[in-house]
């Protein structure tokens, strides 16, 4: 019995010593066109030299889950390895006619709408698999959107740490304060993914939150 305990103790110590660093699954969630992929791209490009996906002004550009494995973020000498998970924007309505405004052909618009609906379902299904989630919101839009509240409510129920990012602070209409007022219980970091503005504060917050992951 004693031999078995001692054996297990040393086994645990050695496996911990030589175990590969476990990736923290970092999910990017939010409504369409908030800049989830832009932010994920910025991080991936900075630390791996490669982007995760394409961005567009047309909503629902990301329609399937996109990954980037083993992204090692080096911040102030500290290193953490992440599995980046970029998700399709969550919406409660998708009308193919909205895509026609972007000079898209009807057939193409219908296909995009169908894929977008499937993307929303996929995003929701993946909520269970996240270690840390970044909610990306457009700081120029009204934050009192039920989709935002629903996503956060689900993450709280699953005890997943959340960071709210107020993106597009480079735009005049951006109101980070409004997002802070809407979600007083959460840390809100204002950034511009497009211009790489205030990413230092973002990395600091991500490192802080990731330490909570068991």
């Amino acid at each position, binding site marked *: 019995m004693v031999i078995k305990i001692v054996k297990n103790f040393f086994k645990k110590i050695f496996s911990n010593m030589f175990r590969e660093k476990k990736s923290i699954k970092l999910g990017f969630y939010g409504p369409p066109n908030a800049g989830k992929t832009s932010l994920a791209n910025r991080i991936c490009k900075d630390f791996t030299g490669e982007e995760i996906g394409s961005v567009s002004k047309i909503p629902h550009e990301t329609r399937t889950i996109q990954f980037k494995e083993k992204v090692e973020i080096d911040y102030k000498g500290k290193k953490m390895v992440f599995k980046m998970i970029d998700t399709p924007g*969550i*919406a*409660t*309505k*998708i*009308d193919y*006619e909205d895509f026609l405004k972007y000079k898209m052909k009807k057939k193409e618009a219908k296909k995009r*709408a*169908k894929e977008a*609906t*499937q993307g*929303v*379902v996929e995003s*929701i299904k993946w*909520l269970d698999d996240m270690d840390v989630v970044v909610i990306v919101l457009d700081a120029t839009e*009204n934050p*009192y*959107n*039920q*989709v935002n*509240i*629903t996503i956060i*409510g*689900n993450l*709280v*129920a699953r005890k997943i740490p959340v960071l709210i990012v107020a993106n597009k602070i480079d735009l005049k209409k951006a109101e980070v304060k409004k997002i802070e*007022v*809407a979600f*007083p219980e959460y840390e809100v970091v204002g950034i511009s993914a497009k211009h790489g503005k205030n990413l230092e504060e973002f990395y600091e917050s991500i490192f802080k939150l990731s330490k909570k992951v068991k």
Partner: protein
Amino acid sequence: MVKKKKKLRKIKGFAIQFLPYSEIRDLNSTERIKKILTIIFGQNILILQGKLKPDEETRLIEDTMAMIGHVKNFSGIELAVISGNGNNQSYFTKMKQGIANALAGGDLGAITIIGPATIVKEIKRNPKKIELMLN
């Protein structure tokens, strides 16, 4: 012979249906979502007493997405939940509220508004007011 006019998608009228929480209290999540969507497919704006659980809200979104393209003229829903702001309440008041909600089987201090996207263009929600923008 008078030629039939092409059917327009524009809505001429709509109905508002109130659903007391007592009508969904004993239903499971699947039955609740089904009941809500049946009302929405009937081109009604639903005012539900109370609110759904977070996982039921996501389930509602999932089922809504699954129905787009399968139900005629259905492109989704607009959804908003208004609940009493508990931030300024004391711990004791919150605890009392929690016990009352547990006894009632749900948060009856909240109201959920759900409308078909063909009728409700947007629900503008600010902390103190709610605006339904129609199509």
